[in-house]
């Protein structure tokens, strides 16, 4: 047997998995955006309430979570054979399967497939995988115009912006900002457009309807792929995805290799978990499923691009691989107190929030996203909210243990450990700690990183006596 080395991470220089600056700096900037903080507070509070209510209706929610978790663990334990089964089924049903080791390969495959159709425009179903690999940028570079058809993705695209939430990519925008974006960038928009939500939706609808009817190629992602049947599934709320998946001649689906489910029956679990955890709906309004090509009905050319882009590297980590169980519901974002305040852009990657903090560093290699595992207080709200029970706090702790550490911090931690191993040294250090307060002029003016504390908080008064001294004197 030949050792082929460790699986590759997502390559640098392509895609949207790496930010321009570390999380603490990006977050500091974002915290000053009062409009965004208001929008996020309102949106996450609303979704949390709605989701909580529909989850409470199900007496077997915890069992469903366990089932979802178990199915995903099974998938990860035999991913290669399931992928080959899927390839066989899709091919038998008239589709073509392509394997993309990374973002560059996936972008090249999709660009070539679109070129072969002769079309210079594609309509797109909302998809995280294509955001991850920056497919739109690759298509544009090749002279092909991608049109996002999910309303929120369209807002992001027209605003030349970046998505800040997995499910609600324009969550940081409010309706008056959306009106401005439409007026500025939507072809053929009515100049008397108001910021009334139905009016905004109607404007998008008019623009998109024209595009649906005149474009022959669509690109989508996939929520699920069934290995035993070769069926792909996309769930959505607007019906724009359904248009893309049924009207064009050619459909190209880009799917992360972890999206696979073994059997048709497994869908039963996930179609209950996903809408309740994500949008707070009992059932998502549109569920589109297709198996290869059906003559005379729907796209007559179907291509499935299976994307690795670092996923095999995640799979190789037996603790971290749980991150691949994610079904992109965003429940962890909506309950995260850090995300609620910083928004998604601070995370630098298309995957923000708690799941992004464990997924992005594993896809890119920890060195390229070293600050993300620390972008959490480990409060645990994400773990409780996750519909497939991904233990995000434990994975954060696991990744922190692998992250590169600042030299000064390493020295402090090593010293603290040596002191704490020795009860006598420890008691002496306790008494010495009082000096910090004197040095810090009653709590202010301490050097970094402690200045981060004293900027907003007083230090506690040091007691005259530690507990152990009190006990000894008792």
């Amino acid at each position, binding site marked *: 047997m030949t050792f082929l080395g460790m699986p590759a991470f997502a390559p640098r220089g392509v895609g949207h998995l790496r930010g321009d600056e570390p999380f*603490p700096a990006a977050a500091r900037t974002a915290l000053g955006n009062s409009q965004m903080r208001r929008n996020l507070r309102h949106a996450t509070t609303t979704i949390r309430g709605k989701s909580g209510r529909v989850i409470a209706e199900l007496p077997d929610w915890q069992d469903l979570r366990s089932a979802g978790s178990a199915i995903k663990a099974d998938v990860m334990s035999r991913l290669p054979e399931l992928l080959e089964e899927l390839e066989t089924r899709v091919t038998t049903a008239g589709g073509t399967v392509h394997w993309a080791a990374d973002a560059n390969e996936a972008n090249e495959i999709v660009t070539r497939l679109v070129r072969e159709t002769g079309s210079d425009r594609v309509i797109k179903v909302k998809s995280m995988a294509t955001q991850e690999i920056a497919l739109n940028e690759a298509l544009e570079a090749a002279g092909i115009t991608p049109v996002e058809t999910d309303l929120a993705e369209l807002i992001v695209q027209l605003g030349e912006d970046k998505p800040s939430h997995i499910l609600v990519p324009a969550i940081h925008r409010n309706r008056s900002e959306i009106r401005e974006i439409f007026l500025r960038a939507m072809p053929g928009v009515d100049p008397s457009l108001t910021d009334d939500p139905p009016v905004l939706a109607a404007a998008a609808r008019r623009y998109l309807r024209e595009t649906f009817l005149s474009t022959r190629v669509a690109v989508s992602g996939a929520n699920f792929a069934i290995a035993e049947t070769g069926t792909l599934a996309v769930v959505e709320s607007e019906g724009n995805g359904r248009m893309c998946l049924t009207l064009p001649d050619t459909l190209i689906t880009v799917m992360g290799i972890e999206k696979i489910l073994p059997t048709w029956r497994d869908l039963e679990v996930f179609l209950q978990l996903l809408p309740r955890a994500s949008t707070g709906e009992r059932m998502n309004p549109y569920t589109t499923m297709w198996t290869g090509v059906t003559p005379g009905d729907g796209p007559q050319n179907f291509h499935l691009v299976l994307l690795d882009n670092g996923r095999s590297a995640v799979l190789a980590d037996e603790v971290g691989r749980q991150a691949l169980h994610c079904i992109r519901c965003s429940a962890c974002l909506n309950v995260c107190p850090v995300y609620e305040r910083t928004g998604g852009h601070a995370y630098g990657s298309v995957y923000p929030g708690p799941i992004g903090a464990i997924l992005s560093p594993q896809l890119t290699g920890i060195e390229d996203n070293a600050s993300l595992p620390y972008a959490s207080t480990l409060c645990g709200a994400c773990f409780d909210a996750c519909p497939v029970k991904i233990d995000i706090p434990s994975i954060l702790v696991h990744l922190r243990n692998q992250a590169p550490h600042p030299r000064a911090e390493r020295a402090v931690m090593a010293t603290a450990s040596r002191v704490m191993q020795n009860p006598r040294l420890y008691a002496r250090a306790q008494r010495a700690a009082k000096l910090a307060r004197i040095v810090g002029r009653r709590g202010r003016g301490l050097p970094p990183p402690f200045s981060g504390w004293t900027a907003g908080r007083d230090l506690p008064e040091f007691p005259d006596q530690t507990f152990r001294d009190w006990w000894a004197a008792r």
Partner: protein
Amino acid sequence: MRIALFATCLADTLYPQAVKATVLLLERLGHEVVFPFEQTCCGQMHINTGYQKDALPLVRQYVSTFDPYDVIVAPSGSCVGSIRHQHEMVARSHGEAGLASRAADVGARTYELSELLIDVLKVEDVGAYYPHRVTYHPTCHSLRVARVGDKPLRLLRQVRGIDLVELPGAEQCCGFGGTFSLKNAATSTAMLADKMSNVVSTGADVCTAGDASCLMHIGGGLSRLRTGVRTVHLAEILASTEIS
């Protein structure tokens, strides 16, 4: 009952009143408290900052110190959470299977104060008297790691004279997160600001919790803004009587 006390390094050093209150409360209820002097720190700061190798000796220190005792109590949901949910993992990931199984065993005998009172000692009314307006912040690790549920509130509801008021957004993190408060100071402060405004909105004089660390954070902010709201550990309220 003979109960071994784990003071936690933070409360031992900075909040001895919370640990003394734990002792006085348990003794008042007729139990014997012992304080093994070999104890230091549970290692949670090292583990959660990414220094498991440096935490390993602290896990060993905790396990060897408390292995001889049947019942161990700490006035901290966070430290108890770390002991119960991380010690075994740290030992095992360093190939120390023997230590791991002892750590799991000692962890299962380590209780947060409200758990000890309600689950082990079977007492809800501890005979406390505390005539103040109080709001309770359920700390994240007590709630979602140690899983103490509403036990602290059940104990507080039995306190004579107390005016217990509900904290809006109670279950949201205060933003402490150990070294998070230093590494992500701006975000931490933003979370603290919201926690403080919720505390102040209750009109309480006292904000209580089962963790000295979160109280240090919330209290540090309340003090800086001169809100006049004090932070008091749950153990101190439960230890208060009409005579004290």
